[in-house]
């Protein structure tokens, strides 16, 4: 019997007597980092996301002033204003004299919490239903597919607004209202993947070996749909943040005085002709955050699952 140790392996004209002696290729992580370093847009995306995450984790470290401190002496001061105590307001102040920069930094918390929570909850629900529909087929698939079609037809923002208005505006209800519609994105992708996976030999082999449906779903199918799920989740994170901002903008977001980017934009609307900075800066930060997530998502898609490239279209 030939053992692994005794085997000789020939690679590129050189004969190795031990597999351990063979030169090891770079690990997946090294390859991913190398690919990241080669892509300036992805690096830019990483930078934007890192800044926002660090802001959200420790806003008090970065915010120069208290985001809630009001003073009518500072009513609508332009960017760069310095008050009598020598405190600088780099991005100006709003109609209540609050510092825009500090509010933007604190506002990153709500955006990230809603974004990450909706992606996680809708991801878990969507992946589960997608696997069940794809693996079982038949009436279960028909029911789940029709539910997906129905949710697609209902106008998203109106449904979310209506739900938040009925349930009450709170962080938890906003997450519920967004999740009710967004799980379908994951369910559709996973269902399609499982449809082709279930015909493959490793699945029929597992079935022949007597594995139960639950074991096949969790042990054999789930790991195989994880990479596309992660890609879809990253690409959707930015969209969730825009939806949260839209709800705040329309007046059904997390209630004041908690700063939110969408809420700041809504407040700035009344002062477009006198104080453009109130609406301008939160929007720029919102856009760069979403852009950063999309650029990182593109990079993740290319290293984890290049077949999904068309999803970005």
């Amino acid at each position, binding site marked *: 019997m030939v053992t692994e140790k005794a085997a000789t392996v020939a690679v590129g004209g050189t004969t190795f007597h031990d597999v351990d002696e063979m030169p090891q290729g770079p690990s997946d992580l090294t390859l991913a980092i190398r690919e990241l370093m080669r892509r300036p847009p992805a690096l830019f995306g990483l930078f934007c996301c890192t800044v926002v995450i660090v802001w959200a984790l420790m806003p008090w470290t970065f915010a120069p002033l208290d985001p809630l401190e009001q003073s009518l002496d500072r009513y609508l001061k332009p960017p760069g204003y310095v008050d009598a105590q020598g405190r600088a307001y780099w991005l100006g102040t709003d109609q209540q004299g609050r510092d825009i920069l500090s509010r933007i930094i604190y506002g990153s918390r709500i955006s990230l919490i809603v974004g990450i929570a909706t992606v996680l909850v809708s991801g878990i629900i969507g992946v589960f239903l997608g696997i069940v529909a794809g693996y079982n087929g038949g009436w279960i698939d028909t029911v789940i597919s*029709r539910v997906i079609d129905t949710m697609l037809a*209902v*106008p*998203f923002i109106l449904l979310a607004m209506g739900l938040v208005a009925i349930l009450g505006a709170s962080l938890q209800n906003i997450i519920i209202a967004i999740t009710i519609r967004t799980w379908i994105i994951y369910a559709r992708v996973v269902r399609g993947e499982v449809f082709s996976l279930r015909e493959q030999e490793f699945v029929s082999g597992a079935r022949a070996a007597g594995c139960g449906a639950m074991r096949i779903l969790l042990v054999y199918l789930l790991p195989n749909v994880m990479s596309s799920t992660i890609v879809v989740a990253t690409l959707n994170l930015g969209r969730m943040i825009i939806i949260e901002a839209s709800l705040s903008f329309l007046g059904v977001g997390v209630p004041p005085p908690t700063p939110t980017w*969408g809420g700041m934009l809504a407040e700035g609307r009344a002062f477009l002709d006198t104080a453009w900075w109130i*609406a301008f800066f939160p*929007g720029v930060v*919102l856009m760069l955050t*979403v852009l950063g997530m999309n650029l990182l998502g593109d990079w993740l898609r290319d290293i984890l699952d290049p077949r999904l490239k068309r999803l970005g279209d």
Partner: protein
Amino acid sequence: MRAYVIRRLLQSLIVLKAVLLIVFFMLQITGDPAGVLMPIDSTQEDLAKFRRDMGFDQPMHVQYYHFLFGRERNKGVLRGDFGFSFRHEVPAMGLVLEHLPATVQLAVVAVVISLVLAIPAGILSATFRNSWIDHVSSVGSMFGQSMPNFWLGLMLIIIFAVKLRWLPTSGYEGPEYIILPALTAGLYATARIMRVMRSQMLEVLGLDYVRTARSKGLNETLIVVRHALKNASIPVVTIVGIELGILLGGTVVTEAVFAWPGVGFLTVDAINNQDYPVVQAAVALLAFMFVGVNLAVDLLYAWLDPRISYK
């Protein structure tokens, strides 16, 4: 083909029924619709009388039956009767239908503007791959997909209405009023159509028949316009249809920014004033239109590319 048409029609009907179920449950999830609909200072007797009058004291399936088929003077939603708007005291569906033309107008103009911008940009990016045109359009579409459209709307107002004074800030009084809202609403559609157009053109330009046309010595413009564009356009038709469907139900934020008197603007106002019959009528109508547009697109696609109906 006929079997495909029938199957798609049946699927759409099921979806429409399910949409009505969701619209019905929008009020029921509170557990007490009377508490939501009546003023906060209502007495217990008022609430009990309201529940009896509206049939909210009945079992859920009976309530749903009345919702669909009507009860007493109400004809039921299947005949378009969503009850009366609490605020305007006119039939809710009539009110929504009054605001529909403005939304349709905005959605159509937005799609036309995005087509005018996206199709040439997509074709040029694919034809001159990796040139500065390609880079500029790619960066543009990346920003387009990342930009919140209500923020774009506010910035357009600052630039074109407040600073330059070329266009009005909001309202609905003449053709110039639609330009900024349509540009805002068409933002995502432009970015998306451009990316699909580009990738489709790249795919088609690499095919054998295009190579044959090139080897015959045809000039590049003729190859792109006559040979490649036609085949690359089929998936674009689907995307345009999907975008139109999304826009019909999704110009809510744009309408709110520009005070555009469409269904979205009306519904946001209704939600803020707890005028639920109007909200229900609007959600149902927009969903019906989305299903209708999607059905039309699928059938059009199957007609353009008969392989679809056999899948």
